[in-house]
């Protein structure tokens, strides 16, 4: 066996650089995603430190990264949580969708994108980063806060919208006549529903089939099944990501918990490579002309997310400071906006650089803003909040 020394060296240097960047970001309690994107830009074509040998590996790794991101998203989904969220926060989900997809759609139209480009950009501005935000809430020790269930409910609702949206986008991106797109979407949504039903009727069977006391066995089984389903989904143009999400959904209970635990280091590694790959696929020179548009879009959709968060928190009768914390927490966009770009691919000139810059801005600004919102002085609001709020049950 020939050991490709150049590949190993480049990969080692990349991972070391990522760990340094990630460490810096964590210290500032920021998400490392923007720094990973920057690293990708730096090592890509036209960047400062190109890595010719590792390029192919990063491409493969990025594909696995998407699969693992969606698999773990599916794994942490639970129907009772979703239905409880739906009961309380259905209006919040509608507000979220309308307020945050519209700016993306309008911008896409103004920039002269076609239907698919507009749909992709709308999705990218709509979906908050559940990865960044969940981590952020834990880091800022806000899990005990009253507004936190509202934030998490909105995120769960977004995830389930993604389950219908991603296959639609994937089928449309694959091209073909309208009826094929329609058929593909129906098939994909049908598959999501089937996976749901299956997981809550026979999920324990699948779980028993895959579960094994040995962590290594569990890892190999779950990963093997996921990659097979993802490949099949890709073959029928429904996107590997959607296939992985379905596998995640159909695993429940203890198997899901254990699978998540054994998969998470792998997910972290390949997700980092995915973010790097997105940066890698964008030419820095292409990015510059889109910076003003990205910043403008970021500013608008930061405001719309704040409105969304405040509305959702007010439904839980949270006071004004808590509403602001909820709104600012939701600003961060991240992995899913980038997954959308990965799906639509580079065939849309401008979309990838625009969204990369957009995610970069919001993944940095979002956590910072919510940090600040939490540090706001407890002003006169305190008296108002205490008189308005009925005592908690």
């Amino acid at each position, binding site marked *: 066996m020939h050991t490709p020394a150049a590949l190993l060296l480049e990969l080692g240097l990349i991972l070391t650089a990522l760990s340094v960047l990630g460490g810096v970001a964590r210290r500032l309690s920021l998400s490392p995603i923007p720094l990973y994107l920057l690293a990708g830009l730096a090592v890509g074509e036209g960047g400062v430190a190109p890595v010719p040998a590792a390029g192919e590996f990063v491409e493969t790794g990025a594909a696995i990264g998407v699969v693992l991101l969606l698999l773990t998203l599916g794994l*942490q*989904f*639970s129907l*009772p*949580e*979703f239905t*409880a*969220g739906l009961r309380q926060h259905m209006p919040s989900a509608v507000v979220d969708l309308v307020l945050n997809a519209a700016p993306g759609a309008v911008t896409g139209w103004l920039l002269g994108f076609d239907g698919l480009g507009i749909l992709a950009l709308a999705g990218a501005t709509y979906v908050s980063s*559940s990865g960044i935000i*969940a981590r952020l*809430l*834990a880091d800022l*020790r*806000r*899990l*005990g*806060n*009253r*507004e*936190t*269930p509202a934030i*998490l*409910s909105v*995120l*769960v609702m977004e995830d389930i919208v993604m389950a219908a949206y991603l296959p639609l986008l994937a089928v449309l991106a694959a091209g073909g006549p309208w009826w094929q797109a329609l058929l593909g979407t129906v098939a994909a949504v049908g598959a999501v529903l089937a996976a749901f039903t299956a997981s809550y009727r026979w999920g324990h069977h699948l779980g028993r089939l895959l579960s094994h006391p040995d962590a290594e066995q569990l890892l190999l089984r779950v990963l093997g099944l996921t990659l097979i389903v993802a490949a099949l989904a890709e073959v029928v143009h429904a996107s590997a990501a959607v296939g992985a999400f379905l596998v995640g959904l159909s695993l429940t209970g203890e198997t899901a*918990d254990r699978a998540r*635990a054994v998969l998470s280091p792998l997910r972290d590694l390949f997700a980092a490579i995915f973010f790097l790959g997105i940066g890698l696929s964008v030419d820095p020179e292409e990015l510059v002309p889109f910076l003003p548009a990205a910043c403008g879009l970021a500013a608008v959709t930061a405001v719309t997310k704040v409105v969304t968060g405040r509305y959702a928190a007010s439904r839980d009768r*949270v*006071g004004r*400071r*808590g509403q602001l*914390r909820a709104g600012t927490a939701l600003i961060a966009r991240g992995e899913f906006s980038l997954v959308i770009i990965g799906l639509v691919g580079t065939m849309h000139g401008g979309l990838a650089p625009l969204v990369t810059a957009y995610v970069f801005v919001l993944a940095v600004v979002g956590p910072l803003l919510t940090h600040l919102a*939490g540090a706001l002085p*407890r002003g006169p*609001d*305190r008296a108002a*909040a*205490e008189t308005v*709020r009925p005592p*908690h*049950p």
Partner: protein
Amino acid sequence: MDVTEVLLPGVGLRYEFTNHEGERIAVVAERTGDFELVVYTGRDPDESRPVVRFNSEEADAVAEILGAPRIAERFADLTKEVPGLLAAQVEVRSASPYAGEPLGRTRARTRTGASIVAIVRGEDVIAPPMPDEVLQAGDVLVVIGTREGIADVDEIIQG
């Protein structure tokens, strides 16, 4: 005491309650097995102040500290009303001949006259335990009986 359970989708559960001093307290139980204890200081009624975090092992230990003596205490209160009757805790060590054996096989009551009225296992309390309940190393048995009876049960269990 009313405990309100709040779902934290994707994260876990939060249990909220108010103690006798009027302090609002919550325990966040994360899916990872970690726990966080928070209090609401009242200046911002929605903002929690984190107090401590426990990993699952520490949480088990705390639960045992808070839980086991209270069970024994409750039985101790009961025994106060009957002179000569005592309550005590007997731990099943891993070296015990009855670790992994059903409770009935100890024939404790027949042999000593003392009763095993509860088994405290981690966070769970099995009360009253059935004879076919299999004892595990680390179980704490709550025993009621005379001083000699309890000593005999201890001897039987420790082997």
